[in-house]
């Protein structure tokens, strides 16, 4: 539904060049919720603005719903009619909502309909339908200043849906909201995705957002996509950065003597089975749990756990083999990263 190939964006100012996007290729399948995650400055914001060409990519192509937008853009900074029409079919919501304070809630939802050229009565009918869809039918005559953050974002979503888009771009839409409101707005996005078949691409710096709604995800750093794919696949991939970021594990060994620390990733069916106690019983060993992070992703229990087994690598090989037989991903963290993670990620 959305494909970018080798997307590059270079900002030039006063002779200096800043590479915001460095050859980004992503592929978003129809009907999925795709999360792009990364820290500030990773290039997420530039990426989402390149998808509807609010920013002109320096090179590379953007295809949305089979339409090559970069070809439509033409030269110069002004958006021609074909590009503007294509943008009408792509909804977008923003971190700071970007509602017009001079218009009522209904007026805000009607704005894209005015741009599409609908008549007065049809605009009113459609705006009220959309407000009903996001649960704000009773606020139609209120001004944005009278609404809470979550309500404002719901208006933003209603407005984004006005052009019957197949694609919704979400630019840190929940980052200005409290956790409770974030959950409810993400729930709404999930519902819209399921009920309307809406493809959602969201950018966020909050790992919880990815856990809560994303089918697929891409991890960005320094303008590049480091990892991408279905969230469940990424979790099952040994050494996945995204899995580590989603389920950060702290905790190093405090025992003296030879022990083995292992990071276990639970996914799929294995998450439901009592693997650890079975290991302890069948191999007769004591297992210390140093850290764990479990959550529900896409309706399934997944997570990671850091455990410590007595004995060096030779003694524990059989136990680790048993875990792998159970369908778990087992990694031995590098002792160097163990302490690094204690001070680094653990502190986050």
């Amino acid at each position: 539904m959305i494909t970018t190939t080798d997307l590059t964006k270079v900002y030039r100012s006063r002779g200096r060049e800043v590479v915001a996007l460095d050859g980004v290729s992503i592929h978003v399948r129809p009907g999925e919720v795709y999360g792009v995650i990364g820290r500030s400055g990773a290039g997420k914001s530039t990426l989402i603005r390149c998808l509807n060409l609010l920013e002109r990519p320096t090179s590379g192509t953007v295809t949305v719903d089979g339409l090559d937008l970069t070809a439509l853009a033409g030269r110069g900074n002004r958006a021609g009619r074909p590009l503007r029409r294509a943008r009408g079919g792509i909804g977008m919501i923003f971190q700071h909502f970007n509602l017009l304070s001079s218009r009522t809630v209904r007026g805000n939802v009607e704005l894209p309909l005015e741009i599409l050229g609908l008549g007065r009565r049809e605009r009113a009918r459609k705006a009220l339908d959309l407000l009903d869809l996001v649960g704000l039918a009773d606020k139609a005559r209120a001004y944005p200043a009278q609404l809470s953050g979550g309500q404002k974002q719901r208006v933003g979503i209603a407005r984004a849906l006005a052009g019957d888009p197949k694609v919704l771009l979400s630019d840190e839409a929940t980052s200005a909201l409290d956790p409770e409101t974030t959950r409810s707005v993400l729930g709404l996005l999930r519902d819209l995705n399921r009920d309307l078949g809406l493809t959602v691409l969201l950018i966020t710096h909050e790992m919880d957002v990815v856990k809560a709604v994303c089918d697929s995800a891409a991890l960005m750093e320094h303008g590049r996509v480091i990892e991408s794919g279905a969230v469940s696949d990424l979790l099952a991939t040994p050494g996945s950065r995204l899995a580590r970021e989603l389920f950060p594990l702290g905790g190093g060994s405090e025992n003296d003597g030879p022990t083995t620390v292992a990071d276990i990733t639970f996914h799929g069916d294995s998450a439901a089975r009592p693997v650890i106690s079975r290991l302890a019983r069948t191999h007769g060993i004591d297992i210390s749990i140093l850290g764990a992070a479990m959550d529900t992703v896409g309706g399934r229990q997944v997570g990671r756990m850091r455990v410590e087994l007595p004995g060096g690598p030779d003694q524990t090989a059989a136990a680790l083999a048993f875990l792998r037989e159970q369908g778990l991903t087992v990694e031995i963290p590098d002792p160097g990263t163990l302490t690094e993670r204690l001070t680094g990620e653990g502190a986050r």
Partner: protein
Amino acid sequence: MTWSEMRPLLEQGTIDTLYMVAWSTVYAVLGGLPIGVLLVLTDRGGPLGNVIANKLLGVVVNIGRSLPFIILMVALIPFTRYVVGTAVGPTAAVVPLAIGAIPFFARLVETAVREVDRGLVEAVQAMGGGTWTVVLKVLLPQALPSLVAGLTTTVIALIGYSAMAGAVGGGGLGTLALTYGYQRFEDGFMLVTVVVLIVIVTAVQLLGDGVVRLLHRRERA
């Protein structure tokens, strides 16, 4: 001078002043609004980003802004005569008043429009809106309270300028104050014209503030 002598003069003077101010305000808005908006649109990163056009426009506006009004008025006499056929009287005074007020109002418009959140422009562009949509549905409505405040300031500046126009035979309260109050030493008459000017300025300011408050009320509910 008695009150019965002053009254007809004051009435005509007030009418002339209001006439000059009203028409020059109309031209100030017609000229200043588009120029002010263009100053924002053509700025770097704006929807019509064009650095050269922006700089040129800025220079023209600055020249208009930097000339003292009394000098502008005298310098424009040939032009005024060409446009309205005469350089004396209230209608003639409208020409330099309008030309002086256009860059003044343009800068106030620029400031007001620049205050509009860039995110709103981006949102409308993301919906498929073009530059006209951005101007008519976002920039002007969102800047309206500041625009009205700027207009109030412009009208009051024009009242001041229109009094200055009296110095070159513009008519209105300024002419009265100069010919009767200053040249004939009628201190009483001078005082009355000043009071009338104060009343007009206060009325305009109160009206402008009232409208701004009304516009703000819905936004800051």
